[in-house]
């Protein structure tokens, strides 16, 4: 059974990565923070007495479910909004017009402008990688992040995603190839 310290250490270890995972999925920082908080509370409330070794898989499963719940709620909310009002419909489509180059220029004008050229280039590279990870199909991104970012093995990832181990391997392979191709197309070598 996980002690208070083990659970706290686990949450501290995964909270930032979980936040980024949620941001990749929902693309809104505030919503991602709410999702991570919900997932943490659900884990502590319902599975706080489970062994520490089971926590990563359980947390990932809860996180994915919470993200799905978010999309369901958004769908219902959007349905009602579109039924009763035509206002504000453009808000949700702002992300489609998101221009990575424009945002990079803005960065250069602020914090990055004070740094050296190498740091700016590194920051840009990191943001491009972040952007490419976000562009991956959902299942591929989930599998890739769980396997290579959350240090979960194939069996744990399969259990958290609710699919076979073969599917996890396929998703991971496709995700890696897609990222390699995208980064190569942008002239990024790691």
């Amino acid at each position: 059974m996980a002690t208070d310290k083990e659970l706290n250490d686990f949450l501290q270890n995964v909270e930032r990565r979980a936040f980024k995972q949620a941001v990749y999925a929902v693309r809104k920082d505030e919503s991602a923070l709410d999702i991570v908080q919900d997932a943490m509370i659900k884990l502590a409330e319902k599975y706080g007495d489970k062994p520490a070794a089971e926590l990563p898989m359980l947390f990932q499963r809860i996180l994915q479910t919470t993200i799905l719940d978010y999309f369901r709620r958004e769908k219902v909310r959007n349905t009602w909004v579109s039924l009763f009002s035509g206002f504000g419909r453009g808000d949700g489509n702002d992300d489609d017009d998101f221009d990575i180059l424009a945002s990079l220029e803005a960065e250069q004008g602020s914090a990055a402008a004070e740094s050296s050229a190498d740091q700016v280039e590194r920051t840009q590279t990191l943001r491009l990688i972040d952007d490419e990870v976000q562009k991956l199909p959902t299942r591929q991104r989930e599998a890739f992040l769980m396997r290579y970012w959350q240090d979960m093995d194939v069996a744990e990832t399969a259990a958290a995603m609710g699919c076979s181990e073969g599917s996890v391997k396929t998703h991971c392979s496709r995700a890696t190839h897609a990222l390699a191709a995208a980064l190569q197309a942008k002239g990024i070598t790691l």
Partner: protein
Amino acid sequence: MNTDDINLAYKIRHALDEQLDHLPASTVDRLAAARAAAMARKKPDAARFGFASGAGWRGIGAFLAGPTVSRLAIAVPLMALVIGMGGFYQHEQQQQLAALADIDAAVLADELPLTAYLDPGFNAYLESQQRQQ
């Protein structure tokens, strides 16, 4: 996945990790607050509330160490309840035995063999007799 793919995956992981260090302070604070909220609502350890872990024994110890009057106020009704339930159980058992003995006696005293009641023709005969009466 070949070695190159795995290497690339871990390089991307390194890049993603590097980004985590640059999260805004407000986000980091909010995550810490979320963690604290989760820890406050952690599911209690089941064993902590179990009888064997000591809570139950501590309760009995506290009861035995209390004043005599309060101990009697709880013990006497409990004893009465236990004795009453025992008596009621005994009485019910006696009633059941007596009923079974009556049935056995009636069956043994009857001139008809038991197999007669299993014969459909005999049942039809009994019904016709009842209708005639």
